[in-house]
C-alpha cells in the first residue's frame, strides 16, 4: 500500500502541475495540503505512539526523525543541528520513498519542490503542539544535490504561560 500512496502522490503533483503554471504556486499548494494533513496527523501520531512531552527542540526533532518518519514513511532521516542558537535543525534523508518512481524533474519545472507536502505536514504538526517553525527544503536530490535535506527552524520559544497550560 506504500506503492499506492507513492503513485497517488505522484498523480497529485502531476495534476497540480497541469493546474498551475508557476512552480511557486504548486509548491504553495503542496505546502497547504501538507499543513491540513499535519494538523490532523499529529493527534494520530500522539495517540498511537504515546510519547511523552518533548522538553527541548532537539528532542522534538529527534522524535520527528526517529519515530514519526519511521511510522509513516518507513525511513529514518539523520538529524543535525546547524545553528549555535539551537533552533535550526536539518533532517537528512538518503532514501525518500516519495520519489521512488521519479528520475528527475522536467526541465520546465526546475524549481518545483516535489516533496513540499512533507514540509507542510511537519509545520502543521508542530503548530498543533504550540511550536511554530519554518520548514523548507535545503537540498533536493531531484535537483541534483547529493541528499535530500529538510531544514526546520523554530521561530520563537513557546511562552512559559503556554507551557503551563499545556
Amino acid at each position, binding site marked *: 500500500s506504500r506503492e499506492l500512496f507513492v503513485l497517488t502522490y505522484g498523480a497529485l503533483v502531476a495534476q497540480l502541475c497541469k493546474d498551475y503554471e508557476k512552480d511557486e504556486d504548486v509548491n504553495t499548494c503542496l505546502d497547504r495540503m501538507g499543513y491540513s494533513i499535519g494538523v490532523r496527523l499529529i*493527534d494520530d501520531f*500522539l495517540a498511537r505512539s504515546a510519547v511523552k512531552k518533548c522538553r527541548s527542540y532537539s528532542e522534538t526533532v529527534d522524535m520527528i526523525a526517529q519515530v514519526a518518519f519511521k511510522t509513516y514513511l518507513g525511513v529514518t532521516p539523520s538529524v543535525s543541528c546547524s545553528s549555535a542558537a539551537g533552533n535550526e535543525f536539518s533532517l537528512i534523508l538518503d532514501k525518500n520513498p516519495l520519489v521512488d518512481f521519479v528520475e528527475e524533474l522536467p526541465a520546465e519545472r526546475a524549481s518545483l519542490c516535489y516533496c513540499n507536502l512533507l514540509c507542510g505536514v511537519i509545520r502543521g504538526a508542530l503548530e*498543533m503542539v504550540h511550536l511554530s517553525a519554518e520548514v523548507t527544503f535545503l537540498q533536493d536530490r531531484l535537483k541534483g544535490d547529493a541528499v535530500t535535506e529538510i531544514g526546520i527552524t523554530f521561530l520563537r520559544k513557546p511562552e512559559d504561560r503556554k*507551557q503551563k*497550560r499545556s
Partner: protein
Amino acid sequence: MAIFSVYVVNKAGGLIYQLDHYAPRADTEKTFSFPLDLVLRPHDERVVVAFGQRDGIRVGHAVLAINGAEVNGRFTADGKDVLEFLGNAANYPVSIRFGRHRLSSNEKLMLASMFHSLFAIGSQLSPEVGSSGIEMLETDTFKLHCFQTLTGIKFMVLADPRQTGIDALLRKIYEIYSDFALKNPFYSLEMPIRCELFDQNLKLALEVAEKAGPFGPGS
C-alpha cells in the same frame, strides 16, 4: 452501567462531544390529593422537592410532568405556573411525575467550559512546573477522569468509583478520535463532532471497558 458519560472539550474550552451512557433513572409518577404533603420550591428553572421525601420521590427530584403533560421549566404545558396550579384545590386529584432532572445541552456546555478553566487553574497552582493538570475528581457517587492531549484536547469520562481501566479507556478514546473524527475529511477541527463512526466505535469501546469491569487490569 458503570461508565456514565464521556465529554470531549476542545482547546478553547468548548464542548465538542458528549455522550450519556447510563440507563435512564426510573421516574416516579403518583396521584396526589389536596393538600400536597411534599414541599416544593422553585430552583433555577425548575420546581424541585425540598422536603417530604417518600416512596420513590426524593429531595432534589424535579417535577417532570403533571397529568401526563410534560412541564416546561416552572410552567405547565398550558402555560400556568406549576406552584400556583398545585396550590389550587380545584385541580386535584392530580398525577405528578418526579424524577432526577437531566442536564440540558446548554448546561453541559457551561459545565464543560467551567471545568476547562478549573483545569487551567489546577495546572498553574501546581508546585511543580509542567503539571499534567487535573487527572481525577472523586466523589462518593462517581469519579471524573480527565486526560489532556499534547494538542490541548481534553477527554473526560465520568464513571463508577469502582470502575477500573479508565486510563486505558481514555487513551482508546483518543485513538478513536484521531481515527474517526480527524481523518474524516469533512470534519473541521475544534467543531462539534458529528461523525457516526466515531459514535459507534466510542460506544463499542465503552462496552468493552465496562465488561472488563472492576476486575479489569490496573488503574
